[in-house]
């Protein structure tokens, strides 16, 4: 399977994403922000970083890059897109995901390991995460507080679009386990069609025991499984 990892000026988790995908046995390549085509691609990863210096708002400028027009089209055709950290911010700015990411409630940049509860296995990004497993994944952001108006939030819940929530070590969604003040402890969501997802934590940084945890691999394994099923369905 071919992963395209976007590269904006000041992306800094692009190489990590490429490394994680290759480590897990698939091919990945970088796609420059000025490219207007994705080429032969099964999945797009919009990586973490500080695209365009986070000027104006995080993700606001990246959204208008030529490659994002291609990503929009790719997503409209049902392609899988995962935004990590700044990538999540880019996808909300682009309107591919609802809501917005605002300044952490304590105004601090948080760089730490957090715990994640998977809210539903029903998505191409969560299906292979073992039931009840609490993922230990790092975060590194200053603007990760998820916000959406009440109507949007109600829709997210009704459609089961909340994928991951911040929790404590035993899976309780407490306020102290919420690092940034995100509504409903939301760490990641997907769109209504379930082919575009974004999350603030960095699964690509924890895909091998050498790095302290391989919990992040479950998110990638879910994507691999979704693509395999798709290929089988197309062949049948």
């Amino acid at each position, binding site marked *: 399977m071919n992963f395209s990892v976007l590269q904006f000026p000041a992306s800094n988790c692009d190489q990590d994403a490429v490394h994680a995908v290759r480590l897990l046995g698939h091919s990945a390549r970088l796609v420059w922000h000025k490219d207007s085509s994705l080429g032969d691609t099964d999945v797009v990863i919009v990586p973490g970083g500080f695209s365009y210096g986070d000027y*104006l*708002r995080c993700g*606001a*400028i990246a959204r*208008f890059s030529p490659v994002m027009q291609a990503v929009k089209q790719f997503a409209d055709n049902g392609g899988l897109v995962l935004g990590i950290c700044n990538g999540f911010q880019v996808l*909300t*700015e682009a309107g591919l995901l*609802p*809501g*917005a990411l*605002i*300044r*952490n*409630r*304590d*105004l601090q940049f948080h760089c730490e390991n957090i715990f994640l509860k998977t809210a539903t296995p029903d998505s191409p990004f969560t299906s292979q995460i073992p039931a009840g497993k609490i993922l230990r994944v790092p975060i590194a952001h200053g603007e990760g*507080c998820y*916000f*959406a*108006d009440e109507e949007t939030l109600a829709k997210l819940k009704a459609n089961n679009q909340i994928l991951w929530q911040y929790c404590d070590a035993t899976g309780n969604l407490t306020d102290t386990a919420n690092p940034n*003040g995100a509504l409903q402890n939301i760490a990641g969501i997907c769109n209504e069609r379930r082919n575009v997802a974004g999350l603030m934590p960095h699964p690509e940084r924890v895909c091998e025991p050498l790095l302290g945890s391989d919990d992040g691999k479950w998110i990638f394994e879910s994507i691999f499984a979704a693509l395999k099923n798709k290929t089988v369905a197309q062949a049948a």
Partner: protein
Amino acid sequence: MKAKIIITQKKAVLDPQGKTVQTALEHMGYTGVTGVHIGKYIEIDLAPGTDKAAAEKALNDAAHKLLSNPVIEDYRLEIE
């Protein structure tokens, strides 16, 4: 000609910066402050003789698409 765009957060959106500044003002002894809201100010220089109505239309479009995020922000546009 100049366009001035003032961007403020919607009231429903958490504004920790505003809250922190409000607390600081209270600590300094300023009384009667019931709210502080921090936003952005953007000044755009326009070529002399620009048609005001056309500029207003274009800048509203730009403000909606790029300069502000309608999910979390409101803006006010002035051209002078």
